[in-house]
């Protein structure tokens, strides 16, 4: 019931390497910020292990540093920022349904933007023969890189000089790469662009990434209606 299998092979390393490459500068920057806010090496290690959320950690650290935010508001903000993981987790469920309870609980902790996109992409590709132990291995390799780079950033601290614009752009470039996995037909592309435009409009009055969650829910609903009608047409013509 609690069997958890992890596999790290060539395929897994090839899948996690680009994520690790992106995490390194981001994690370093996150660790430097943590150190400047006053977190110890152990504190940032615990946060990176148990929270594991790039932007969530950046926002929480900034709030801790400002000194004005109550613990409850930092925790609530983290919850809202990470609410999109609920959507990721729901999407991945069908691929891991044969796993044990223990596997589900371990795998859930590893769901972030990057591991979600790569695992969804591999699982949905029939020819990739992506397995549950590989999915968990890929996530652990990525998570490990995140923990190590944030800890390193905290230790090196002000010794590292960071071009914050360039580091910030690493995330954007990584997101574009992950997005491109889903350009499989024109509906997926158009709905994605629609979500982007909607998010910009929502960001004028919604804070803390709530605009991401709400634009996703709205755009996916449009996509669903479109897909439903296409399938209906196909069923009629068939």
């Amino acid at each position, binding site marked *: 019931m609690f069997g958890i299998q992890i596999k790290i092979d060539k395929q897994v390393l090839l899948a996690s*390497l680009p994520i690790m490459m992106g995490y390194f500068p981001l994690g370093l920057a996150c660790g430097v910020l943590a150190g400047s806010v006053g977190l110890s090496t152990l504190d940032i290690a615990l946060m990176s292990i148990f*929270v594991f959320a790039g932007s969530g950690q950046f926002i929480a650290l900034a709030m801790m540093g400002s000194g004005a935010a109550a613990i409850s508001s930092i925790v609530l903000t983290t919850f809202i920022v990470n609410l999109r993981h*609920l959507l990721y987790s729901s999407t991945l469920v069908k691929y891991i349904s044969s796993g044990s309870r223990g596997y*589900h609980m371990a795998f859930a902790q590893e769901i972030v933007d990057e591991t979600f996109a790569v695992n969804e992409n591999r699982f949905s590709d029939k020819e990739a023969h992506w397995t549950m132990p590989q999915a968990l291995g890929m996530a652990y390799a990525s998570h490990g890189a995140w923990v190590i780079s944030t800890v390193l950033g905290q230790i090196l601290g002000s010794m590292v000089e960071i071009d914050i*614009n360039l580091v910030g752009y690493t995330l954007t*470039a990584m997101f574009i790469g992950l997005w491109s996995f889903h350009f499989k037909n024109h509906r997926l592309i158009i709905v994605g662009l629609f979500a982007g435009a909607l998010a910009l409009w929502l960001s004028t009055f919604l804070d803390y990434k709530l605009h991401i969650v709400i*634009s996703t829910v709205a755009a996916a609903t449009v996509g*669903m209606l479109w897909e439903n009608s296409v399938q209906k047409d196909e069923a009629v013509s068939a």
Partner: protein
Amino acid sequence: MTTMTHGEILLTIFGMSVVSYIPRVLPPLFLSNRKIPRSVENWLKFVPTSVFGALVFSEIFVRPGYTFDFSMGNISLWASLIVTAVACKTRSIGASIVSGLASFWLLQHYL
């Protein structure tokens, strides 16, 4: 520097851990043995492209303080057009990051 005590920092991290885990773990605990209706499956099909569309547009155009940058001098926009071309051609995150950093750096220095 934070005004929090070390105990408060640990309490914050603990609280963040709990609220980060809940949305991740609920679906496998409650959905895994159920047959998902076709409409829900179609809805989930559009989640990834929507999330990344929303994230990418926000990263490119929204600036701190919730203002927009729609100017021609928006370096992220130009770099992202290059990255999109590379990503569509290669479908590789590694190539996306490398081409993105290179073009962002070049634009930053020469634009």
